[in-house]
């Protein structure tokens, strides 16, 4: 804050350069580009991640729109016509190798490739890195009162590794794409595409992205342990940090297992070692066990960051201490721990009855810490001074959508019910309600809350809320009908369907267009804000964590003009902030007297 810049202290002194915003460009364009490409500043790396992840989100979203478009009619639609040559495009025969193919089988293959691409991009390139690598990178050091993450150069390396991994994924799509589904189940992934590199490229992509994920997680764990500001104990940390800590633990402990599995899968394809091939004595189901031993914990790598953001959104926009801080903090660790013992619920049809019953019972345990969080957030809302800004709308949207997503998960965890529901659109709807209705919704909400801090510009509130309603309604329109058709027996991953499902599929496809419109509104709102938005104050929402109270908007290169000392908790609104004089106001905490921060 401007009022205390005169009290700056620091062991190595500051020159003028360090008091500038980290976004200040260099003298020439090339110097600026090289500065960003070689930066070890966690804020710049976070923004570079943000841009690349949003670009991947666009690619994955386009694939999703293509999938929905195909399903607009029971049989013949765009991809069919592309395949039989009744629609000519400039990319025909290059992007997808279906030129001149005049049969339905080829168009179905194309459909398989597109939903596989959608799944792979959204899981490995978007949701897994989304919040930790972008908002986490940017805000973990700021919230802890640190100048950077523990290993800044590893942090930059993780971004380049992410780029290399993305390159392999996109290369695989460009040379023809894979149709294994995002799970790479054997024998799909070992028998199809014989002699080609597409599957190997895609597996390598996931393998390489794993390193990026491990480096990010490892960095955050050490940062939280070693770089907390003086006065910040474990239970003085914002809950965002606790969520990120749980996420990082899973990233570090689960990712190596998929690493060895994918490595063996590559060996299997290249050298036919036979480990997943029953003809040679191998076991294809073993792959499923190993895949889910990683990929189920990773589901919580995807949702925990969403929950982490939720605690901040609710606290800041209700101006109230989060109800049950320790319960929320420990539930993050509980989710991380339980994550490792429930993988078998993805394999109810591929394992013995006893194992299925045990995994089913363990699965219900996940509901406990998840419910602890949801109930604590709702309790925080009670008697809070709620300001219905865009981020708060997103927080409420999360509560609504995640509750549906979480509760339908119990249906699927129940053996007898799952017998009917497995591999139907009910599953598709369930995990979209959790992954997208949970993580992406919280991500977009967090992006709005922290946008002023990251760029020093306010977004337009009116258009922010228009965007929210388009996304929220579009989301429900897209995915709620999928619950219904799933219960009625519509299987997932099919390009065509019987006529009675038409209405649900059409509603779902219209919803996907509404979602597109909502995200475009957000995108233009953000771009407009960068170009012409009003300047943001250091603390537009009256938040109490260090990134609001002690850093500029946007922060300076070294984050703080002084070494922050923690004098109050991140949610002590009752103690340090004057009460609102009118609704929707964000009173600021009283600044400390000059000199109080020098130590």
């Amino acid at each position: 804050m401007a009022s205390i810049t005169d009290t700056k202290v620091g062991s190595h002194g500051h020159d003028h350069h360090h008091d500038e915003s980290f976004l200040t460009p260099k003298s020439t364009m090339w110097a600026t580009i090289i500065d960003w490409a070689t930066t070890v500043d966690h804020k710049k790396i976070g923004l570079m991640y943000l841009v690349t992840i949003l670009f991947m989100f666009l690619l994955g979203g386009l694939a999703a729109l293509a999938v929905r478009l195909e399903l607009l009619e029971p049989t013949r639609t765009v991809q069919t016509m592309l395949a039989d040559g009744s629609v000519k495009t400039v990319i025909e025969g290059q992007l997808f190798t279906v030129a001149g193919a005049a049969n339905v089988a080829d168009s179905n293959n194309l459909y398989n490739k597109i939903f596989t691409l959608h799944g792979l991009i959204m899981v490995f390139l978007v949701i897994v890195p989304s919040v930790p690598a972008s908002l986490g990178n940017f805000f973990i050091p700021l919230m802890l009162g640190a100048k950077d993450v523990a290993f800044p150069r590893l942090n930059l390396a993780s971004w380049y590794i992410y780029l290399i991994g993305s390159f392999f994924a996109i290369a695989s799509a460009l040379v023809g794409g894979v149709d294994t589904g995002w799970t790479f189940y054997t024998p799909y992934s070992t028998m199809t595409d014989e002699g080609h590199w597409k599957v190997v490229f895609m597996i390598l992509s996931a393998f390489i992205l794993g390193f990026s994920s491990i480096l990010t997680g490892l960095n955050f764990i050490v940062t939280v342990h070693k770089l907390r500001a003086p006065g910040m104990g474990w239970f003085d940390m914002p809950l965002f940090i606790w969520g990120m800590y749980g996420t990082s633990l899973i990233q570090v402990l689960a990712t190596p297992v998929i690493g060895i599995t994918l490595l063996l899968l590559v060996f299997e394809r290249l050298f036919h070692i036979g480990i997943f091939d029953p003809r040679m004595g191998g076991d294809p189901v073993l792959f499923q066990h190993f895949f889910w031993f990683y990929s189920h914990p990773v589901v919580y790598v995807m949702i925990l960051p969403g929950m982490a953001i939720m605690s901040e959104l609710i606290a800041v926009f209700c101006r109230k201490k989060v109800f049950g801080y320790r319960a929320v903090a420990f539930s993050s660790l509980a989710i991380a721990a339980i994550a490792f013992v429930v993988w078998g619920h993805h394999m109810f049809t591929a394992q013995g009855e006893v194992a299925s019953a045990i995994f089913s019972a363990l699965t219900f345990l996940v509901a406990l810490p998840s419910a602890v969080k949801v109930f604590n957030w709702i309790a925080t809302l009670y008697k809070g001074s709620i300001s219905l800004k865009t981020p708060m709308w997103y927080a409420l949207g999360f509560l609504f959508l995640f509750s549906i997503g979480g509760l339908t998960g119990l249906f699927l965890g129940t053996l007898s019910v799952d017998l009917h529901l497995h591999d139907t659109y009910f599953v598709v709807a369930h995990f979209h309600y959790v992954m997208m209705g949970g993580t992406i919704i919280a991500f977009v909400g967090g992006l709005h809350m922290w946008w002023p801090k990251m760029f020093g510009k306010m977004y337009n509130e009116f258009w922010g809320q228009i965007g929210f309603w388009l996304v929220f309604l579009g989301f429900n329109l897209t995915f709620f009908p999928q619950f219904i058709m799933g219960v009625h027996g519509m299987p997932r991953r099919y390009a065509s369907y019987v006529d009675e499902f038409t209405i649900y599929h059409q509603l779902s496809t219209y919803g996907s267009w509404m979602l597109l419109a909502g995200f475009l509104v957000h995108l233009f709102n953000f771009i407009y804000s960068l170009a012409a938005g009003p300047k943001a104050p250091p603390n537009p929402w009256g938040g109490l964590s260090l990134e609001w109270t002690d850093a500029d908007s946007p922060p300076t290169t070294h984050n703080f003009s002084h070494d922050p000392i923690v004098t109050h908790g991140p949610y002590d609104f009752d103690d340090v902030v004057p009460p609102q004089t009118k609704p929707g106001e964000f009173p600021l905490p009283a600044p400390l007297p000059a000199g109080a921060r020098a130590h």
Partner: protein
Amino acid sequence: MASIPADKHGTGSVENLPPHETYRHAEHFRNAADEFDAAKMGVWLFLATEVLLFSGLFVFYGVMRMLHPEAFIHGSSLLDWRWGLFNTIVLLLSSFTVADAVRCAQSGDQKGLKRNIVLTFILGTAFLLIKFIFEYAPKYAEGKLPGAFFSYPNWESPYEPLWWGLYWGATGIHASHVVVGMGLFIWLYIRAKKGHFGPKHYTAVEGVGLYWHIVDIVWIFLFPMLYLIH
């Protein structure tokens, strides 16, 4: 890992002092001790990922052995345990020399530090040479190869290609870790020669040492699993 080159911060106002005497910690740490602890914690977390990676491999071994014990027993009997034992001794010796390297860095014994790094490097090379000349090469010639490349005529179980797949996979992944370690020792030697390490700063020596120990420990598990259990 994550050590900052000593010449990064300032040029050392005191003339004629080696870099490790004038080492300044990276600015985002409060002091050098914090930086050292953080680097060490980072290495330990990295080692945890290595342990999990190899645990996955061991589970694959366990499952496959349970499914086809006869293939594994016969396959194992075709390995020469004497070369395995010899390589175990080579690696254990290298563990001793790398531990001694850390001690030398701590006590400021520059000569001993460099000697131990070179010795460890030589022992690592010996491990790889023994592996390639006396183990990999004859097996390659006899067709004791993974999966589809298997052409060894005197097999007893049709699932022996699977055993060779795991043998080559497991020892290959381990050998690739040894190769990475050798690269790290070259890097350490160059830095040691420039005088980067001393009692006040030896983070990289400690980190690489820890890594080398995990490479040894993995071999300590691989050796009985592949060569000894019948």
